[in-house]
């Protein structure tokens, strides 16, 4: 029983990275911009966060550093894609490759360094409730922030006028432009906010989850987060659900190993990636479903004045 509680706790903790990144990408994509550079932004955020935590000892400084790093990278991407109309796929890939290279390069200074364990402090009082306490309430604050963010994002997108404007921009930037909205700036804002969230996700990973620095510490989470938005059909609550699901699968491999299951560790390590593929295939099967929920202008360039 206790084991299951711990498994749940581990799933929540593991899923928080994907949740933050996924929500950030959701914001991006709702505005109609596809940012394949998620992995790069997370890596840069992870490095910035680790460095800041190492230097200052303060987690919140680390998260702020991660957010800033992610936002700056996203801004470069945004300017290229939104103002210079470069190919969104290629530019996103460039962001990933550059982010990977940059984080590896600067990260050489931190190779092998670790931080102290920052496990779940939890919510006092609730943390002692039998089963639910260890399962749900002994998390790092970031886990709860992610959940709060989901609600906030849902409210923003579906109950506020600015969120409506954002959705309009993602649906038809030409119409929004004709109505006088500053489409390019709105998109840049969404891209940078999304980048900041990916940066925080990366920082959370390197500072709380790992907590050490190694090249490529994100191991593809950025890409899984991208798959998440499709899986979630672009709705915040489903992003969170999907994040925990994948977090669970990731934890599953360690659990199985611990249970002495007779499968090689390398094959178990394939689990998160294989399950992403399976889920993607199942979700994408219905093109109509996707069309209704996907922001119509996603991935397509916008030329004002055409």
């Amino acid at each position, binding site marked *: 029983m206790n084991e299951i509680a711990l498994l749940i706790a581990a799933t929540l903790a593991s899923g928080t990275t994907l949740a933050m990144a996924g929500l950030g990408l959701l914001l991006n994509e709702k505005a109609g911009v596809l940012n394949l550079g998620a992995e790069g932004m997370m890596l840069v955020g992870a490095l910035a966060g680790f460095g800041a935590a190492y230097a200052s000892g303060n987690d919140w400084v680390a998260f702020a550093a991660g957010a800033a790093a992610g936002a700056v990278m996203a801004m470069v991407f945004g300017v290229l894609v939104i103002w210079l109309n470069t190919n969104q796929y290629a530019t996103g890939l460039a962001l990933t*490759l*550059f982010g990977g*290279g940059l984080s*590896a390069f600067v990260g050489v200074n931190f190779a092998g360094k670790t931080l102290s364990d920052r496990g779940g402090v939890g919510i006092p009082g609730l943390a002692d409730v039998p089963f639910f306490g260890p399962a749900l309430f002994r998390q790092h604050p970031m886990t709860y922030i992610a959940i709060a963010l989901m609600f906030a994002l849902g409210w923003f997108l579906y109950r506020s006028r600015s969120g409506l404007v954002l959705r309009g921009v993602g649906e038809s930037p030409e119409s929004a432009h004709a109505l006088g909205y500053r489409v390019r700036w709105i998109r840049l804002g969404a891209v940078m906010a999304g980048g900041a969230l990916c940066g925080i996700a990366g920082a959370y990973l390197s500072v709380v989850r790992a907590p050490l620095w190694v090249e490529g510490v994100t191991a*593809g989470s950025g890409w899984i987060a991208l798959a998440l938005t499709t899986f979630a059909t672009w709705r915040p609550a489903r992003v969170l659900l999907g994040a925990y699901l994948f977090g669970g699968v990731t934890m599953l491999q360690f659990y199985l190993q611990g249970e002495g299951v007779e499968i*090689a560790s390398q094959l178990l390590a*394939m689990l998160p990636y294989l399950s992403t*593929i399976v889920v993607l295939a199942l979700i994408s099967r219905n093109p109509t479903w*996707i069309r209704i929920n996907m922001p119509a202008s996603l991935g397509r360039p916008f030329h004002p004045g055409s």
Partner: protein
Amino acid sequence: MLKLEARPQPSKAMSFASPLIALTLTVVVAALLFIVLGKDPLVGLGAFFVEPLRGVRQLTEVALKATPLILCALGLAVCYRSNVWNIGAEGQFLLGAITAGGLALWVTTSGIHASRWVWTPLILLAGVIGGMAWAAIVALLRDRFNASEILVSLMLVYVAQQLVNYLVFVPWKDPMGFNFPQTKTFDTSTWLEMLVPRSRLHIGFAITLALVGVFWAFLFRSWRGYQLQVGGLAPAAARYAGFSARGALWTSMLISGGMAGLAGAMEAAGPLRQLTPHVSTGYGFTAIIVCFVGRLHPVGIVFSGLLLSMFLIGGELGQSRLGLPNALTGVFQGLLLFLLLACDTLINYRVRWQATRHVPVAKPAAPVTTEATP
């Protein structure tokens, strides 16, 4: 302020100039970076651009590293021109290395004797098939389930990496290898023939150059190549013409998978002669950059392949001579791609300087008497 103005016709001159401008800017940034790191910029740039070209031995190393880059990039060019975004070339490369390496291992352990001229074609073919099979998964999922080829091909890279790890740690581990994760060294009959004696440059390079011509003809003179590219440029026009989108998907994925697999096979049977977890130093990803910098054009890819090969070698030289981390190469590569994409804007847009008119706020000003219009 600067304004971007669309050109009526894409500029051919800028098509050629853009990569050169991007390269120049990268060099400038690189020099600045060296200064910031406290190293002599000239020595640093020399390590990347001059040293790798000094002497026959070094030139063969450049050509050697360029081979898998060019091969993968040729296949990717077909894909990207068809608007099929295969970014899993790295995984297809690894599978090619696995299947080719597997065959070579079998030859090594089974003791069957035959000459290189028998085994080499079979081993290379095995690599092609391995890469194609891995790419076929992506095509199938996109064809049947509409799953994004970007994400599926990427996920398969991670799976392929774990597969390599598994094979060299467990079933294929060399029992005499002191428990290192590596396979036996392959029998000499499976090795690739050398092109330049006393170097590591094998016939794979010659095969690659031949394939450049094949790909040029395919892209620019063949009916199939034309159909693929129309599909990439204007899918509605391709449907109007009756070109099969499904055919384009399979053709481009299988071609790029095959090429990446071939590159993997050449790497396993050429310089490595065994399988280890480090079969690839990210060739599949670097090839993406090679592809774009080479303008998705077979001839351009040869030049960009050699250029990025120089970057790779320069990174190693920079490490040994200047103590700079090898990861610097990754920074330069990423930077080059960014700058290239930015410069590419100039192909379709002109930059104009437009004087801003001083525009007062839209509040009604003093009344104006209207002139009689003619």
